[in-house]
């Protein structure tokens, strides 16, 4: 049973890695989509459109951290165009800055998750962590908003 679970887990991991390798644009878009969905949950809780829930709050930060950690390898040189990507060529012009920003986002999201104990701390943490979003969207994403 454990062995089966292990094999399934490994296969799942392998499959994810494979998707990431074969279609990095789709993979990074999925990460950003998850970020957006979680960010909406965060805003809805802040605006009392949905009740505050500590697990849900921590999941927001966990999702952010995961995206920040996984994203750097999803911008190989052959993924500058195609797949309806909104990524700008500026990413590849200053990859070091782009990667550093993702790393900062990931580590701050992780710390914020740990520091979130209730609604008040959540409010403080989410406000700080989301300041990272605009930094990349300003320079590295096609203008849409």
């Amino acid at each position, binding site marked *: 049973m454990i062995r089966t679970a292990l094999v399934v887990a490994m296969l799942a991991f392998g499959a994810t890695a494979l998707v990431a390798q074969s279609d990095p644009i789709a993979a990074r878009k999925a990460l950003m989509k998850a*970020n957006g969905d979680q960010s909406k949950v*965060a805003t809805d809780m802040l605006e009392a459109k949905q009740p505050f829930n500590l697990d849900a709050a921590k999941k927001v930060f966990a999702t952010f951290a995961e995206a920040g950690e996984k994203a750097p390898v999803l911008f190989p040189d052959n993924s500058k165009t195609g797949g309806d990507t909104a990524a700008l060529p500026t990413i590849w012009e200053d990859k070091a800055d782009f990667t550093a920003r993702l790393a900062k986002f990931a580590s701050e999201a992780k710390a914020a998750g740990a520091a979130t104990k209730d609604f008040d701390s959540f409010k403080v943490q989410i406000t700080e962590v989301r300041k990272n979003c*605009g930094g990349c969207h300003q320079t590295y*994403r096609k203008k849409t908003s």
Partner: protein
Amino acid sequence: MLRKLVMLVVILAVIGAAAFWFITMPATVSADALGSYTPDLDNGKTMFYAGGCASCHATPNQDDKTKLGGGLALKSPFGTFYPPNISPDRNDGIGGWSEADFVTAMWKGTSPDGSHYYPAFPYTSYQRMRLEDVRDLFAYLKTLPAVQGKVRDHDLPLHFKIRRMLGGWKFLFLDGEQLRPDTSKSAQRNRGAYLVNGPGHCAECHSPRNPLGGIVASQRFAGGPDPEGGDGSVPNITPAGIGDYSERDIERILESGDMPNGDSVGGAMAAVVANTSKLSADDRAAIALYIKSLPPVKGPKRP
């Protein structure tokens, strides 16, 4: 007969040249028109953030947005503009300017040496500002750090380098009017209208432009292509575009950049939010109220 015809052509040419000269003459505001005044620095700071001066004039690639050394490359369909140094440096910035020089620049788009500024500097919006607000802003700018260094020339095709021609553009698109409050509307809505159409200069990006680079008045705020080029776009902010946003949603965008769908604003709007986040909550609420009150207008098709 032929002589008369030649005479007529000459006379018409002289009249034409005189009209061109007159129409394209850079307008100024004289110091006598200003009167004495004690500036309000707090209000000047508010105007600084409402006007988003730093978005274009801050020295690029450093974090202090009050260092207004200029030099950011601002792409446009007409060429690349390099916003000048507007720090209080006496030689390279506006430290040697009189108040009338500053009001003239903001209202008339004319430089102290009497030439036209390009409308990349959004004086079409800044001309709507109240005189007091412009004077307060000038006083506030003088409190910021002086930055040395002149900025390079704009990178424009030859035929756009003749600044006198901009007088013709201003004749078409600059009416010289300040914004008068609409007494039938609430004070809050008037404040919002003022911030949006005056210092905020929102319409400069959120509207389509005609081939001459003037805002298409009938589609004001209805969005359009990215003015800095590329295949991006600027959204329609009339109810035809963001009708599902509440006032609160707009306030939050201006405060933190977080949009109701979970996305966060990007492109030049991220720099705008860096400024609007420093406005008072009341001012953001006034902007939101006004934006929500705009008539719905269909914009150009988004790519």
